[in-house]
């Protein structure tokens, strides 16, 4: 899969470098749907990228998806492509042919980003999945990310199915957590790069502020968090490819926790280094950091996932902690 992954990552990087510019991001926050970006993503086959080839897709796995979502986060892509990819993957897994266009993915208690533009909505509670064509959307807006965030008025289900056992009862939440973790990891790379550039050009006391140890120490810490988020996301994608979404719950939870923590720390540092200019509307930094803050809460904040894996570890007990941690990617000894 790696060749296709590399190729798509490069294509998507190029597309987003052109089309996911600050002007488009600002327009999206003012309700202008980035039509050109979406249609080029469709032309690349991205909405159905996770659907098996025999069902009309590209047949990418979750690890590939995580890599693509990270690139989307790096460019703060203002389209709900990741959600639509995940929704199509889950529908296809349940034997429901995913429709073309934007399929929103419903998560418990969350508004749907750009729901008003969705032709369809997939809901996947408790291992079931259903496809809807909502009759209307109560329009809203994300407080932090400022993107349109809407509540569906559900029509009758167009199709219903059951997910294979490997998807477990929380497939949509797990896919959403992987998506949000990956986007945070990508956006963190972008803001770290922006901030290093800024620190090397902004001069005070006669020299670039990046020459001051106080600033270097902050950015080095930020780099550690960025690296940790990227590794946690890659590990979660690999685990989901190997064991399915349900079997990768620990790794996906870990990715959401680490990316969420890294997002908080990283955003704090990049704003501190940018100082007042980074607090302005004019500077593009907040186009990324506001999304990082928002993605932290998407598909469950760190707290929710930490309780989940923490409860499991406490139930297993200290005697199993290390063995459980090391056995996840190893076949048991004969």
């Amino acid at each position, binding site marked *: 899969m790696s060749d296709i992954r590399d190729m798509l990552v490069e294509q998507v990087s190029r597309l987003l470098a052109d089309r996911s510019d600050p002007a488009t991001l600002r327009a999206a926050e003012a309700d202008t749907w980035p039509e050109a970006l979406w249609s080029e993503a469709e032309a690349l086959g991205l909405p159905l990228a996770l659907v098996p080839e025999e069902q009309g897709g590209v047949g990418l796995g979750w690890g590939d998806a995580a890599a693509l979502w990270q690139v989307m986060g790096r460019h703060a892509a203002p389209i709900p492509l990741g959600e639509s990819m995940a929704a199509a993957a889950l529908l296809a897994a349940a034997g429901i042919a995913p429709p073309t266009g934007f399929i929103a993915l419903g998560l418990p208690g969350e508004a749907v980003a750009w729901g008003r533009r969705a032709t369809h909505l997939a809901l996947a509670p408790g291992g079931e999945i259903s496809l809807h064509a909502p009759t209307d959307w109560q329009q809203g807006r994300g407080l932090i990310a400022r993107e349109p965030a809407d509540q569906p008025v559900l029509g009758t289900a167009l199709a219903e199915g059951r997910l294979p056992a490997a998807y477990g009862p929380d497939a949509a939440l797990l896919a959403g957590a992987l998506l949000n973790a990956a986007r945070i990891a990508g956006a963190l790379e972008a803001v770290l790069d922006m901030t290093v550039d800024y620190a090397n050009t902004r001069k005070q006391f006669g020299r670039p502020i990046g020459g001051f140890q106080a600033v*270097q120490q902050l950015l080095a810490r930020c780099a550690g968090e960025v690296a940790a988020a990227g590794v946690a996301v890659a590990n979660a994608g690999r685990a989901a490819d190997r064991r399915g979404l349900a079997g990768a719950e620990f790794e996906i939870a870990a990715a959401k926790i680490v990316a969420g*923590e890294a997002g908080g720390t990283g955003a704090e540092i990049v704003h501190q280094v940018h100082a007042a200019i980074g607090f302005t509307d004019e500077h593009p930094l907040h186009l990324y950091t506001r999304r990082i803050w928002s993605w932290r809460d998407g598909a469950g904040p*760190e707290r929710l996932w930490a309780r989940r894996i923490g409860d499991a570890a406490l139930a297993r007990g200290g005697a199993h902690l290390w063995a459980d941690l090391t056995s996840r990617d190893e076949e048991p000894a004969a």
Partner: protein
Amino acid sequence: MPSLQFPLRDTPAEAPALRAELRAFLAEAGRDWSPMVPAYSWMGFDREFSREVGQRGWIGMTWPKTYGGGERTALERYVVLEEMLAVGAPVGAHWIGDRQSGPLILRLGTEEQRREFLPRIVRGELAFAIGLSEPDSGSDLASLRTKAEKVPGGWKVNGRKVWTSSAHRCDFMIALLRTAPAPDARAKHQGLSQFLVDLRSSGLSIRPILDLVGQDGFNEITFDDVFVPDSMLVGQEGNGWEQATAELAFERAGPERYLSSLPLLTEALDDLRAEPAAPEAVGRLLARAATLRQMSLSVAGMLQEGHTPAREAALVKDAGNDFEQALPERIRALVDPARTPPQVIEMLGLMTMVARSYSLRGGTREILRGIIARQLGLR
């Protein structure tokens, strides 16, 4: 500004069988360990334990068989290291030799040095100390002044080394010494050389320094006209800085940079079940541990491929130190002393104290972050 990459690695196919062997061995060996043992782990020292580890082929695992090594992979060795550290085994008597002195001798030593030293390290019989820091040269290591002057047949060493872990129990030290004056203040990295120094040499005295726990873990070593034969020079005269920097990549790359306090989590876990805040706190710690483990494995993979991942190792060490240092404080916030077994309270207390060393030893947090910042392109 190339960002550091940490490609995922799998543990080797041999890992499960190796783990089973190690766990059986460690369960037996660790039956009577007091909380002091895991609290010190690789700063502890137990020759008998190290000899047993050597007998099982777990020292010098990757070295050529000619020198007693096992010719196994760096990732198999990694499995052994992480199993040892996860229980806080007292590995200090062979740790330094296995991790850096042996590999240095193997890479740059003479054939005579390899034959003399490596088989004894492998057997767990020869303990090494690290001779880098000096009273006036800590983070600014290249400013070190302990000097070796050329004399017939060898070198005459004068000066002092400090913070040398377990030197009073070790046999040899690899010392970084000044063999030529620095041409100027900006070129102080020149004129340094590495030597194998017998810690029982005449003129060499070792004064234990008590640490804040009250343990005699580290030392000050005074060289007073200590004679070191020519045959004990390691590598090239004057090339010591480059050699020692490469050695630091080995020193910083291992799982000991994030696992130091993990035994406390294992030990305390069962008694945290009634604490409402425990699931979230434990979940956050586990997420970090699992991620650091992947980062650490990634660096082990780079070593396996023959790279010298000095910057990657610095980043993983820094991130790992943050984790292992925070862990005792997180556990403390959850523990009810009235309802917690005394051995957990004791280990928590010891690790609360010892944890201060995590972000100092092997390069302070500030030095590591300076390395990372330069990698980012900050000047």
